[in-house]
């Protein structure tokens, strides 16, 4: 099979048929073998039944029904497990996205990219503070990859299936799949997609989201950098405290042998605290080295293209 299209849906009973028509029209143009995996993200309005109806007319439709409403990102993960196509494209099933963009992803993948992330150029960024957050986030992102991602959060993504096995997607990490893939040597790219959210509904990019994005990116950065060499990472973290500890120890020694002996408990106390801290951080490093060694992380190597 050539293409697996993963579409997440939440309460889309009114638009699902229209969407399906549009998608199948586009897919016909492509003349590829395909499957459509609909993820019903615990809809309450009977979207599930509607998809089952569609399924009876088209055997290429697969359906996953979730019993709990989760984020779009998590919902898409459930589709990845089923996908058997060579190319995988994930998209949000609300009508903000245009199925005509699917072909752009396929062309990108065919031309050698492993992961292609959508970019909603029409989406406006919000206030100054949130754009500050996203600027920092983008700086971190571009330090991890050779290209600049404009819109890492875009649910419209495409990638090569053989890559899947290198990536572990758990909870929110999936949204940073392009970053993790890039850190493992994949060829990542970006493509513009159409985006038409109603103007009245537009909330922009609020501060809380910006902060969450930033903290998540820092987490991914740490995880990616650090999971390959945790002992080194914790070692680095402990260096400043080793320095503070030994400096204080020096002061204490100097104090003992100096003429005006102060007899203070504070300096040696703090000295002991910091030395204790740096030792325990080194222990943590050792511990996580063990954890990483016993995990299946080191089995991850890039596939041949």
């Amino acid at each position, binding site marked *: 099979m050539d293409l697996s299209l993963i579409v997440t849906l939440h309460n889309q009973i009114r638009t699902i048929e229209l969407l399906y028509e549009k998608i199948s029209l586009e897919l016909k143009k492509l003349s590829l073998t395909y499957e459509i995996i609909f993820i019903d993200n615990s809809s309450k309005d009977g979207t599930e039944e509607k998809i089952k109806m569609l399924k009876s007319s088209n055997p290429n439709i697969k359906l996953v029904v979730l019993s709990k409403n989760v984020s779009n990102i998590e919902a898409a993960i459930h589709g990845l497990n089923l996908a058997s196509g060579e190319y995988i494209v994930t998209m949000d099933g609300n009508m903000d996205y245009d199925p005509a963009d699917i072909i752009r992803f396929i062309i990108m993948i065919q031309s050698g990219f492993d992961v292609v992330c959508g970019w909603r150029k029409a989406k406006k960024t919000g206030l100054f503070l949130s754009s500050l957050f996203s600027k920092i986030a983008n700086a971190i992102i571009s330090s991890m990859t050779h290209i600049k991602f404009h819109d890492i959060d875009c649910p419209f993504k495409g990638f090569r299936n053989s890559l899947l096995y290198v990536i*572990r997607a758990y909870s929110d990490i999936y949204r940073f799949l392009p970053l993790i893939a890039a850190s493992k040597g994949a060829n990542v790219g970006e493509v513009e997609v159409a985006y038409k959210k109603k103007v009245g509904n537009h909330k922009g990019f609020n501060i809380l989201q910006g902060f969450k994005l930033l903290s998540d990116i820092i987490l991914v950065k740490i995880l990616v950098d*650090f999971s390959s060499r945790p002992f080194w990472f*914790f070692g680095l973290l402990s260096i400043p405290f080793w320095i503070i500890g030994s400096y204080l120890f020096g002061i204490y020694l100097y104090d003992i042998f100096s003429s005006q002996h102060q007899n203070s408990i*504070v300096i040696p*106390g703090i000295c002991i605290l*910091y030395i*204790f801290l740096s030792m325990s951080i080194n222990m*943590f490093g050792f511990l996580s080295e063990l954890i990483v060694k016993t995990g*299946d992380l080191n089995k991850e190597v890039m596939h041949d293209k």
Partner: protein
Amino acid sequence: MINKEELKLSTGLYSQGAKDEILDISVIIPVVEKYDDIENLYISYAEEFKKLTERFEFIFVIDGNMKKAYAEIKKFSHKYPGIRIIRFLKPLGESMALSAGFEKARGKYIFTLASYFQVQPEEIKKLYDSLLNEEGDIVVGRRIRKHDSLFNRMQSSLFHVLLKLFTGTNFKDISCGLKAMKREVIQSFDLYGNLHLFIPIIAEHQGLNVKQLDVQQQKEDTKLRIHKFREYIDRLIDIITIFFLVRFTYKPLRFFGLFGSLLMLASLIIILYLIYHRLFSEAFALSNKPSLYLASLLMVIGIQVFAIGLIGEIIIYTHGKRAKRFNVKEIRE
């Protein structure tokens, strides 16, 4: 946690009944600590189950230290059809007993019961009907404590207030032994320790539909229950365990990172204050300021907490594929 091999070694010492036959209902009764006249208990419940269906089985799971109960059950088990016994070689606790029962159960629907008189047997029909009507994947009983003794009610409501505080759950009688569930859902729990207490919460966390039904309490259950002091402490620790399990298993750094950062922030504020005074006030010596000690201590704890969160995150990251998630209701290929 005890692994599956160990469980297999210690279970299934004695079991009887036809093999691989699909039944309507499996009733699991873990006999772990306290038990009443178990033959009468069996008779009164079996009568009610007979009204629902002919094809049901009772599975008694007997913990290693319950030798007397084992002798009693073995004695009457020959008189009635459809009784199976699983006996542990050593005491493993109620969670393992339930897991073993789940593993051996052959019914389409699974009921669990307490090994003492707790809920009126007639109430079983209510739960069964609710399951058949697809009202929930799991139906749990909630005892109406109209006739319960005051002390029982007080300690139970205190426990549930604490539980609600930590987990935000709305279950009002989590320790009720009467639960009914579909067969498909039993694989979503990995029960160990005292987690059997929190089956409804874990189930809800896994995305299952849990329904709570009022049931009548039996007279024997209204007697005053004063537990050992140790057990009250245990329950407190259990609540904290489930709190962490439900909230932070998949994102440890969110919690520990935030907590650790707050501690570090507090430490930084103190340090900045001290530096300010050291630079701009005269005769201000740091060596006799205990607040410097406090600041350092906060910094040490903050970094440790943060590092622990990071280790938690790395465990989930490297072993995350094996972590169970059961949000999927249905797959059609």
